[in-house]
């Protein structure tokens, strides 16, 4: 490296510093956070966040506010500094920067590769369990859960496997319920495989169409924002992404899995109690989690009522169609019912259910 002359020092010139020292780059925020310090400040941050996409041991904890702040500041600083002055630190960040860039979505992956879909499965076991617990217990999630936790890292693992588990648990428990109902009759019970198809259709429609409708409603019913209120605009124009909504709805179905097993017990009162409890719990969680987005919508009350009633109708529909076997109607063996007859049966069963004394053995 040449020794700088007086003329050089008087000029405002960028020195190409060596890779060992990153102090030549002007707009670099060098923070040596203890969790990420490994071989130099800039390189430390780069390698710390380069592992975000994969499963290395240096993966930062999402949701840790200090780490979020550092990450935000360093990425914005790198963005501001631009390409020219960053050649030196690019050399240091080279190996980890590409990982960091891909992890933060900088690299444009084709949707035909499997790596594109891996970003939706970027969850660990404890995160999935956390999200399931957050979906069952109201008020457990923090206030900005939708935006910060789910919004940053929506996953498709939870929704997909919860819906598949729910389909099969409803089909299996429905068959067990009808078997137990007819066990004492001496009726030659047979397995009804059609239940799987009906359950699958219902649940997939609910878990996919409803978030899409909700997303569209949120997007196009934003309250007009007063531009003078510049402080609030960011959160006032927030609408959740489609993936976040599908994630929320998928996890909200998790409570129905143990409930569907309990629905086998053929006591009508208990079944209705379970419906109400489960729908109330997960409905409350849904409303609580969606509050930041609901606040910005013009039809907030209408949306709240819509979300809750859809949830209750789903739960009641499951219970009535698959599990409710009043003693005087052979309800479990309809081979391919059409929609009007299903509706008629459901309303008939509901009418029978409100009559007192509907106890079975």
């Amino acid at each position, binding site marked *: 490296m040449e020794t700088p002359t007086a003329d050089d020092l008087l000029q405002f010139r960028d020195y190409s510093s060596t890779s060992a020292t990153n102090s030549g780059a002007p707009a670099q925020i060098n923070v040596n956070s203890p969790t990420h310090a490994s071989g130099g400040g800039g390189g430390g941050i780069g390698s710390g966040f380069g592992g975000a996409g994969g499963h290395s041991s240096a993966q930062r904890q999402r949701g840790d506010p200090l780490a979020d702040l550092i990450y935000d500041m360093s990425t914005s600083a790198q963005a501001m500094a631009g390409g020219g002055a960053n050649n030196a630190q690019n050399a240091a960040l080279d190996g980890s920067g590409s990982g960091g860039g891909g992890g933060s979505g900088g690299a444009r992956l084709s949707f035909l590769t499997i790596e594109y879909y891996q970003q939706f*499965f970027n969850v660990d076991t404890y995160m999935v369990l956390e999200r399931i617990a957050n979906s069952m217990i109201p008020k457990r999630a923090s206030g900005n859960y939708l935006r910060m936790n789910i919004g940053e890292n929506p996953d498709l693992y939870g929704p997909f496997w919860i819906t598949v588990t729910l389909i099969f648990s409803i089909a299996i428990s429905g068959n067990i319920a009808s078997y137990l109902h007819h066990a004492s009759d001496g009726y030659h019970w047979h397995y009804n495989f059609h239940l799987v198809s009906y359950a699958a259709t219902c649940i997939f429609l609910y878990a996919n169409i409803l978030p899409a409708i909700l997303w569209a409603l949120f997007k196009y019913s934003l309250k007009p924002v007063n531009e003078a209120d510049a402080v609030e605009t960011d959160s006032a124009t927030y609408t959740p992404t489609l993936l976040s909504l599908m994630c929320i709805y998928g996890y909200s179905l998790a409570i129905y899995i143990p409930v569907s097993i309990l629905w086998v017990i053929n006591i009508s009162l208990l079944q209705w109690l379970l419906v109400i409890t489960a729908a109330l719990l997960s409905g409350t969680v849904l409303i609580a989690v969606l509050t930041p987005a609901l606040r910005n919508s013009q039809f907030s009350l209408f949306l709240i009522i819509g979300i809750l009633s859809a949830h209750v109708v789903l739960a009641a529909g499951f219970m009535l169609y698959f599990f409710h076997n009043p003693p005087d109607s052979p309800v479990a063996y309809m*081979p391919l019912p059409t929609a009007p007859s299903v509706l008629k049966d459901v309303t008939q069963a509901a009418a029978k259910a409100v009559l007192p004394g509907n106890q079975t053995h």
Partner: protein
Amino acid sequence: MDAKLDMFEDVNTSPSPSLEGDMSIPGKRTTTTTAQNGVPDYNTLDEPIRETVLRDIRAVGVKFYHVLYPKEKSSLLRDWDLWGPLVLCTFMATILQGSSSADSMSDNGPEFAQVFVIVWIGAAIVTLNSKLLGGNISFFQSVCVLGYCLTPVAISLIVCRIILLSAQTRLLFFLRFVTTTMGFAWATYASFIFLGQSQPPHRKPLAVYPIFLFFFIISWLVLSHN
């Protein structure tokens, strides 16, 4: 002047410049072939079909053995094949299918195609899931392992079918239940041994749960068959 092109030929031994020889590959020669006179004796790649089929059957048999006694795991993963899964799936689907012929309210069990779809598409989805979570196993290796691990479930299906031959009592139902549970546990344990290493460390339960669900559903189909 006679311009002769000398091609390093020994003029004494080859009477004519034509080329002749034998097209057999030097080395291994199968001694079990009964080649007729005049028919050339092809070996290795063109061995008799019996040899080829027996070799493949032996490979499949070795894999079945390794699934039933899961100690050494490399052979299933290294030379995967899909013969075993196909045989098992066809066998199970044939037995499990409900007959729609006798009367309309008789066994409404799954159709042949439904069992087929559940097994193959289920194995594909489970494999896709483990790949998306970051596992480093190839697609067909995983489908191969999942298919071969159906062996205990198929054995429990055979036992249940035998139990079903006599009149049903609660004891016999309990016996079927125990057999099916054992088959399910054995299948899950075997597949966990084979596929366990290839999952990323923090996500092992996430990858194992779909395998558990897959075998649970198939065992349920076995148990509810009557």
